[in-house]
């Protein structure tokens, strides 16, 4: 294959990775930005989203699009509900202590993962894409569904940005992130904001998972990679920065696509990790983050 089409394919693959990664990492970034909680169980919310999507599409049957749309709505809601319960039962009782919440979310990771193994099983199960349109380019074919994932993810990111910057809820969240004590003094129900943000973070991960599951199947260990990549993205982009998260997700996704296609996938991982190290050394707050107060 010639260089041009080869690069096009690499870029398309990179964009799909970026799109899903941006959504997942945004959830992690929000939770850390507002609550100062490092949610190690984030990847498991991602996995739950995919597993539930499988359960919902299987239960509904009929045309694949019907089940998929239902999954896109119901699965994130259920995952958000589970996250809310976990937040109320665990994180709040720990008083959001940074060290304690890390250990607690590690525990949540294992509990969710093993419950999925027990009730869902060890197999990878496929979900049919809502439509199967193969775009035929002169050099290769490409999945139309993958392109729609990029578009959907972009729309959702814009929507999240609008909520954060243009609505009262967003204002309350930003106030809590900026200074939670002062926000509380001004009558903002910080406690409820925390619950909502934790649930929202899980919802974003679950949506990303529902979008990716027709491409990559639901499996009980699928949360590990997104967690790791989300951490890389959030560290590079700056914790709590929406813009930084998206830029970093694009950077990591595209470089992964292009480097692994022209050189080797291992090199792509090495470079991503090196980038994290460099950012931590020279700009610990991340590319777009602000220094901790």
């Amino acid at each position, binding site marked *: *294959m010639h260089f041009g*089409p*080869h690069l096009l*394919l*690499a870029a398309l*693959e990179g964009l*799909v*990775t970026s799109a899903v990664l941006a959504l997942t990492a945004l959830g992690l970034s929000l939770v850390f930005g507002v609550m100062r909680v490092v949610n190690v169980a984030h990847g498991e919310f991602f996995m739950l989203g995919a597993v539930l999507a499988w359960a919902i599409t299987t239960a509904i049957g009929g045309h*694949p699009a019907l089940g998929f749309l239902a999954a896109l709505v119901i699965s994130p809601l259920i995952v958000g509900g589970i996250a809310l319960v976990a937040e109320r039962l665990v994180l709040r009782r720990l008083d959001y202590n940074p060290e304690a919440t890390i250990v607690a979310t590690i525990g949540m990771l294992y509990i969710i993962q*093993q419950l999925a*193994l027990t009730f869902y*099983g*060890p*197999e*990878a199960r*496929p979900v*049919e894409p809502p439509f199967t349109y*193969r775009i*035929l380019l002169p050099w*290769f*074919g*490409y*999945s139309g569904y993958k392109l729609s994932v990029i578009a959907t993810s972009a729309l959702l990111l814009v929507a999240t940005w609008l909520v954060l910057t243009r609505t009262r809820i967003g204002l309350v969240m930003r106030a809590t992130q900026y200074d939670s004590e002062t926000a509380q003094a001004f009558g903002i129900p910080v406690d409820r904001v925390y619950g909502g943000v934790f649930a929202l973070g899980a919802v974003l991960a679950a949506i990303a998972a529902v979008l990716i599951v027709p*491409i*990559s*199947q639901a*499996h*009980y*260990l*699928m949360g590990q*990679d997104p967690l790791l990549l989300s951490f890389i993205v959030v560290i590079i982009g700056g914790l709590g920065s929406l813009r930084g998260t998206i830029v970093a997700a694009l950077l990591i996704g595209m470089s992964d*696509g292009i480097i*692994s*296609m022209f050189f080797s*996938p*291992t090199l792509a991982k090495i470079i991503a990790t090196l980038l994290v190290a460099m950012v931590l050394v020279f700009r610990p707050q991340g590319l777009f983050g602000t220094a901790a107060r």
Partner: protein
Amino acid sequence: MTDKNGFFDLSTTGLTRRTALKGLAAGAGLAVAPGFVRYAQAQSSAPIKIGFQSHRTGIGAAYGRWYEKTTAAAVKAINAAGGINGRQVEVIIEDDGTDPGRGAEMVGKFATQHKTDIVFGTLFSHVVIGSAPAAGENKMPYFVVSEGHHVASTKLNRYVFQPGITDVKSQIQSMAPWIAGNVGKKVTMIYPDFAFGYDHRDYLPPALKAQGADVIAQIAIPPTESSFTKYFPQIPAETEVIYHVMVGPAVLTFVKELGEFYGSNRPQLFGFIDSLEATDINSPGLEFLDGSHFWEGSPRYAQPDDSDAQKAYRAAVGIDDNGAAVGDAKDVSTAAHMFGCWETLYVVKKAMEDAGYKGPEDRAKLVEATEALTAFAEGPEHPQGPKTFNGKIHQCFGIQNISKVEGGKLKVVHKTKIEDGLYEAEGDYTTQAL
């Protein structure tokens, strides 16, 4: 002599009749405790303990579940027929998490804590390689059902055996003539970037070369990869056959993306069913595999010429004609590999009987008796087919099936001969000290 402090006065030390009875009861309880009885009655009737190192969690969990089912069925059949040397067989399962480090720990646990007679049942090659040294150190016979070439390479140690499933090197060598003659001569390989994949990487090119065919590209894919389209441009345009070996849950993605990339205008495909074990061949996206060929150790779908032994084996394990669990069509088995558990247990039975095996002190005798075996006849104990066994390299050699995907089923189109897969031994375990 006075007893001022009342040391000898039973009435004041509080040794009441109730306390005495309690002590008596405790002593009696100790005597009937399970562990006590086993030692008290010597080994004559105590069960033979087989430690099963199972991939119950981790990446191999789907295999682990079916290996457990097959093992349970085989043990049930062995026990119903009188056990081994008149003793019942008891299986003790430990989960290794499909992890080499934990696998080695489990072998140690079987040796020191459970005091099992042997350890058995490991599939994933990295776990076998990680656990083998622990088996050697504990002088614990370790019977794996792994398919990798590591046992036969003689790089492990004298306590490791693979008597129930043919190794990859032999499989490849026996199938190469058929691939070159019927599928195509310009082959691109796609394989996982770790031990199991390297067996394919190293042994396919010479095997094909001998048949006048060539491997024109080798694409290694990291085992954790979840998206594959980016690798496909590396497949040369003149490729006639894509030879694919993928392990792990991402295989459906692999096939689907291959379909999107090539459409109907694809090269021929030849794959190892390992990718699709425990996966329904009729899953959405797998239509692309229609007409392609697979290696199968033992056929997943019932074949018209199945032997009575094969039918009895399938019934005992509980799989239907489509290779799924009886009563749950969605629960697809790992039929191409799990027969190895059944057959390995019968090899253990034979070797223990030959050795007059009585207990862990006879482990060395068991190793020698296993090494002395030479062939296993096809039958209820070896339903997959006849096998020869090379005691020097601790490896068996059997027939392989090449199946074609037709109408949503796998149909066996070629069976290799045992001789096709024989190769020169690379070493000799029997020269190692016991």
